């Protein structure tokens, strides 16, 4: 099993990377770009474990380490 965690920074928290990319895209000729946000995904494989197990383990990892509760939310998807 494989979990893909998408970690998104809350809207109210600055995203310097997104802002810089947005500026650079406009410079590159994409004048109609609105906002850009950059997020990270962390893909965790847990071979030989079932869905339930992986979901709960990965939720634990997110709470403890993968996401920072001060500024981030996360979403978990599980794949075979």
């Amino acid at each position, binding site marked *: 099993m494989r979990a893909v965690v998408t970690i998104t920074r809350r809207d109210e928290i600055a995203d310097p990377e997104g802002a*810089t*990319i947005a*500026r*650079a895209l406009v*410079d*590159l000729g994409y004048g109609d770009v609105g906002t850009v946000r950059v997020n990270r995904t962390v893909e965790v494989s847990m071979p030989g474990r079932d869905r339930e197990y992986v979901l709960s383990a990965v939720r634990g990892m997110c709470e403890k380490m993968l996401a920072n509760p001060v500024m981030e939310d996360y979403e978990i998807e599980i794949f075979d």
Partner: protein
Amino acid sequence: MPETLHRRLGMTDDEFQAVHQILGRPPEDPELAMYSVMWSEHCSYKSSRAHLGSLPTDAPWVVVGPGENAGVVDIGDGWLAALRIESHNHPSFVEPYQGAATGVGGILRDIFTMGARPVGLWNQIRFGDLADPHTRYLFNGVVAGIAGYGNAVGVPTLGGEVEFDPVYAGNPLVNVMCLGILRDDQLVLGTAGPPGTVAVLLGASTGRDGIGGASVLASAGFDEDAGAKRPSVQVGDPFEEKKLIEACLDLYERRLVVGVQDLGAAGLTCATSEPAARAGVGMDLNLDAVHLREAEMTAPEMLMSESQERMMAFVAPAQVDEVLEVAAKWEIEASVVGTVADGDRLRVYHNGAQVVDVPAASLTDEAPILRRPIARPDWLKDLWNLAEPAADVPFDVALLALLGDPALGDRSWVYEQFDHMLFLNTVHGPGRDGSLIRVRGTDKGLAVSTDGNGRLCQLDPRRGAERLVYEAALNVAVLGARPLAVVDNLNLGNPEKPEVMWQFTETLAGLGAACETLGVPIVGGNVSFYNETDGHDIFPTPVVGLLGLAEPIPVRPRQLEAGMAILLIGPAQSDNLAGSAYQRVVRGTLGGRPTRIDADEGGRSIELAIRIAHVVPGAVLHDVSQGGALIAAAELLVAAGVGGQVEVDSVPGAFGEDPHRFLCLVPSDRAAEVGQLAREEGCEVRDIGITGGSDISIVNQTTVEVPLARITAVWTDAIAAKMRGALHE
């Protein structure tokens, strides 16, 4: 089929035949893989080796000269300094961030392989025109990569050079230099030790990174099908390297290793064959013990992999356990992968079977040595006779144009991205002629200057190379340091062209002669050929890294203030503008024949600069190089936020770059003292101005005043304004 395989690996039919002859049978695939990387231009120096012997490499203070991973010199009081320079040009073009980052990683390993702690990094980087978006992308990525790796690995980046010229647009140059220091009883060499010694592979796991990087990427030019040749990009991991540095230094401290070799180009192949050849022994290498990142790698892949952050330690059997404990403490992986054997054979085992059996030294010593044809370029005469425009722009216009040029203006956009203060030893970081760090526990300082100038060398590679050596020497002299040793990095075009080979041999002749007259040995270097795109070669671009020793460290020069005399010291200015920044920026030309060095005058200027730095406290010294005397003065004034008046007699007088000249700024009442010192050393001094006011006034037949604020704005924007919002990803 082997015949087609060897060509795919970049080997000629002759080379394949030579391997066949050495082995007395056709090589197996893994064997061919090993020869292809070790006999590549990058690893074997086959085009250059026949010529390198002419360089002066000896001096009483040289402990290790060229041939080992880095040069080592004695700096007294029980301390040694190790230095080395390398290029990472092609990888940085393919992927600027990772290419530059892994260049830094590689040069660091060359230094801590010698037993030294790396204490400083320098970089010399050259790109096309910043108006071009792709150039901005490359420049931004390279600087970010150097910063990303150097900062995180925890070694300060203390200086460097940056140049822009369209000739580098399709082939940027990324050179990196590293300095390390060590106690004299801690020197470690890249030797395998006696039979029975155990080979322990330390650090990152081995993946399919940069397979054939040395043979294919670093030893051929770029053309349209470059994409097809691109091996996978190597990704640097400064965190792994940081742990590896600490682990290795810990191993040396405990005296647990017989020898050490880093894994750079040609990976495991190089890290087994070279130490075995140096020790005159054989080696058994067991690939099944190598810790891998990717499953099911083939033997050729493992032997050629250029995965980063790996080291091979050679350890006496009784000490292997302790070595593994030290590795565990620093949280790096370690595998026992081989044993030094009697005889001279390098044998490799994979999946339990022997897959390689070759004489170890044949990989390193029997690489072909080519004597490529050499011819002076026809176009040179035309360049020397180039007609220059008759009329010149006003001095103030030229001044602003030059100070607004990205190669001459404020480069803090570059160096503020580098940690240049770590270790608390940086007396002079980037932003001055050279860098100077203190050696704690002594009163010594180590100064480094790195200098290159492709345009000068395009016009005359021999004179250009000589000039670089003397310029670097004067750069450390103005910090109060005496030249001690040189490393060089020769970036050139395609050596299959006789003109490029001529540029190469002329460059060597110039380097050798200048180091000879200066009495400074060359303790290491690197040759990077095939810097060409679509058949166009770059300018011959040798880069010199010069180490100097200051003893003691002079007191820090005072802040520039109003009322200081501006003295120009050194030989009178000729009317030569060949290869100058003035030609490039103001006239848009490149032509003429550069002024030669004068070893006597050069030596006197160096002696005088050192003396003033030590005996005239508060004197501000700055050598005259790119842009000439007026620019040198303006740089000091702008950086200090102080105006001044500068007299110039002519355009070459203001902007000419003749060698051996430097500025000395001292309170007016001490100018006579400097004059006296200059007379004693046999140097000329001219009083060309005075500091003060809120303008820079250029005095010729008439006086033009340019507000300092305006100059400062132009200077500050030289790079920063062009790079606003640039991205490295």
